């Protein structure tokens, strides 16, 4: 049986599934329920400095978008950091860590951007026996207006500075949590690295308004008729998170920097994908908030099964295996030619492939053959775009099949060798180079 245990910056956990810093990790009660359910670790909900805690709105804190059957696809929140007293949190953290020594307990922190408050809180956290700290430089709402959270995360120099203070004033591993509300995710990651951070975690939530109420014309979630952008998360953000993780994983300056992957992890498969892109652990929030803590059991069982099938004994055996396959568009093989193929046995005749192709793409799928409703790919027209695969309601009914020989569309032979845009005759850079010669 595969071994799911992880050692991330020396922080050990029985599996890579951590709960992200968020409402599910705000209290001992919740965290213990999570550990009982099987979660490998938690990042305790962000602590602020001593004194009167922040206050939250007393109206809705969450907004959402849904897919078919009201399946939650994206969640947004305008909740702030913990609104519980610092002392209570610290006491509970210490108790939990003592009671659950095999689980990872990392503490998320957010205090003003000055050395003294950071120094103070780090000392207090260290006393609890927590395994590490995560610097919340990502929270996009509320706290950012006060110069914290994403306001720090959007300025690489601040990230570097605070990371440096943290490493200076603490012996705990330091994880910097990155905001996606930035143009180039590599810059803050690099800054964290320069500051001496041991790892980055990403993504934090994305600026969002989930809806506009068409009766009151208030954004959602609505507080007395007004709304403020919140942080977006859940299954809908996974593609954005995967891309940002991959950028850090393959960028020469940040390559090898440990990453804790966050963003829409809902199933074991999502987690495996983050791991394949180099993440040492994954953090989950929305899936737990949607279905409860029990889902971790599906994640554990699914990941074990996958690893057993593939012959991976440990997480390290496949971690990062997808990273070398992330490349720039210009290096993609232009001689790789695929055509869609419809499995007629599996086809339920809904015709969505046809109309998608006919109306919006390449007119490459029939709707009628010999007077019969029949959906078949016209290889002479098919550019291999994959849209039909994506709109088909039946999994694996339509597949993209690589072809060789002559491409029926271009009528030209397919070069079996790899060739990309950098050498393509249509590339202006290639012409100018030829002209120069």
């Amino acid at each position, binding site marked *: 049986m595969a071994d799911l245990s992880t050692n991330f910056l020396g922080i050990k956990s029985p599996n890579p599934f951590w709960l992200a810093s968020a409402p599910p990790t705000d209290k001992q009660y919740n965290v213990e329920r999570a550990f009982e359910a099987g979660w490998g670790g938690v990042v305790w909900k962000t602590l602020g400095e001593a004194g009167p805690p922040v206050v939250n709105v007393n109206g809705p804190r969450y907004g959402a978008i849904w897919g*078919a059957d009201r399946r939650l696809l994206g969640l947004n929140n305008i909740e702030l950091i913990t609104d519980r007293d610092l002392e209570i949190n610290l006491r509970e953290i210490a108790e939990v860590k003592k009671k659950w020594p095999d689980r990872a307990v990392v503490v998320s922190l957010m205090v003003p951007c000055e050395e003294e408050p950071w120094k103070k809180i780090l000392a207090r956290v260290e006393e609890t026996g927590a395994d590490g700290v995560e610097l919340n430089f990502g929270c996009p709402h509320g706290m950012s207006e006060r110069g914290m959270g994403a306001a720090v995360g959007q300025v690489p120099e601040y990230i570097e500075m605070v990371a440096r203070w943290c490493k200076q004033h603490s012996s705990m591993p330091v994880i910097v949590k990155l905001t996606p509300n930035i143009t180039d995710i590599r810059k803050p990651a690099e800054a964290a690295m320069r500051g001496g951070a041991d790892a980055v975690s990403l993504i934090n939530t994305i600026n969002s308004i989930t809806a506009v109420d068409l009766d009151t014309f208030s954004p959602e979630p609505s507080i007395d008729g007004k709304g403020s952008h919140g942080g977006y998360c859940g299954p809908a953000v996974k593609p954005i998170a995967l891309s940002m993780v991959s950028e850090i994983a393959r960028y020469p300056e940040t390559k090898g920097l440990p990453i804790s992957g966050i963003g829409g992890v809902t199933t074991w498969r999502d987690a495996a994908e983050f791991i394949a892109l180099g993440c040492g652990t994954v953090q989950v929030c929305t899936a737990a908030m949607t279905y409860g803590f029990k889902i971790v059991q599906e994640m554990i069982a699914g990941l074990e099964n996958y690893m057993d099938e593939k012959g991976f004994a440990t997480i390290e055996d496949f971690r990062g295996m997808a990273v070398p396959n992330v490349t720039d568009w210009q290096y993609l093989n232009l001689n790789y030619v695929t055509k869609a193929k419809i499995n007629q046995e599996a086809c339920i005749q809904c*015709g969505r492939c046809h109309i998608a192709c006919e109306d919006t793409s390449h007119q490459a799928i029939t709707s009628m053959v010999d007077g019969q409703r029949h959906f078949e790919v016209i290889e002479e027209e098919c550019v291999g775009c994959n849209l039909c695969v994506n709109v088909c309601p039946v999994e694996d009914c339509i597949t993209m099949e690589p072809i060789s020989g002559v491409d029926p569309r271009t009528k030209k032979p397919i070069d079996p060798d790899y060739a990309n845009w950098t050498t393509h005759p249509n590339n202006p850079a290639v012409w100018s180079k030829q002209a120069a010669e």
Partner: protein
Amino acid sequence: MNAKQSVRDVKAGRLDARAYGELFSDLHPPLDHHEARVEADRCYFCYDAPCMTACPTSIDIPMFIREIATDNPLGAAKTIFDQNIFGGMCARVCPTETLCEEVCVRETAEGKPVKIGLLQRYATDTAMQAGKQFFERAASTGKRVAVVGAGPSGLACAHRLAMKGHDVDVFEAREKPGGLNEFGIASYKTPGGFAQKEVDYITAIGGISMHYGKALGRDISLEKLAGDYDAVFLGTGLAGVNALGAADAEAEGSLDAVEWIGKLRQAADISKIPVGSRVVVIGGGMTAVDAAVQAKGLGADEVTICYRGPKERMKASDYEQELAKIRGVTIRYNMNPMRMLTQDGAVTGMEFDRNGETVTIACDEVMKAIGQSFAAESLNGSGAAIALDGGRIRVDDEGKTSMARVWAGGDCVNAGDDLTVTAVAQGRDAAESIHRALGA
């Protein structure tokens, strides 16, 4: 058992009062808002959707379901009524299992079609309960059209003609509109006086004058109508009942199923309707099932549908047969009726030939549901001018008869299945044809 020794047992009030309510309540309770949204989400919005092709009125089913899914049930109702002004009744009585739902791709995929009928009912009920009217009359054309029969085809035709600005006079033999919707369909399929509410909803467009108690061939003649009006539409339905022939007898307890169903529908108190303890229903269509299930519902002990052919030829769908069985009705196949057994002028049993063997079923009532026929004599001498085909009025694709300025549709014509939805399509299309012919 010797039928002659049996004592006939026919009486009303076999059940306690509450049981009537349960047995005659809605066969399929309507979907609530949540159920409708969940079900609507299952629709794939197919291209050139098979359900739409299967619908005789070609309702844009994927579009109305998408409108329900996006919380626009009124828009959904408009999409339905655009094609089928009887969308409410059709949602209740259409054999969807052999039409739209049979070809639903989710039937292909999972054996569980989208519940199109129930979604259609959700949308149309929403609009009708809100009293929302979607259609207005065009400016008056001054043209007058006579419609004979206030059933689904006649009223669908009248509605479309009124919409186009024509003035319509509807002549109905009965004292009440609705045709088979009102008189010919099992109570549990359309409880709560729905048929009348629907007629009111449809005629609310205006420009439609109803004339009751006017039967073709008795009170009005085709010749006169053709002279008085710019066009005539015949939607008379089938006034004749197929006879059992030699097997039949004039006897107490020998009943016409359609008439019996109508009586049940019109009864103010169904507990007052007598029913035999043992009932034999002869026939194999929906009428046979409607009669048998209701006889059972009224408290009959043994109800047997006897169909002359094998199971696969039975016209009632598998679903209808299943329903009958669930409700406790026995269905026997290959039962060819030979002789009605009577004693003192009353039914005591029915004798069948089953593959050469004589089978006798003792019973108190025999309900005949072996089909209806067009009463050509109602054409009142004009019959010669209108060509018939297979005993019904011959029409072309647009519903034109062989007689100038006379159209026809519904069960009285020789085209299409004898379904409410087919009648609606024919009435609607004839109205379009009349409108074109009137050149307004």
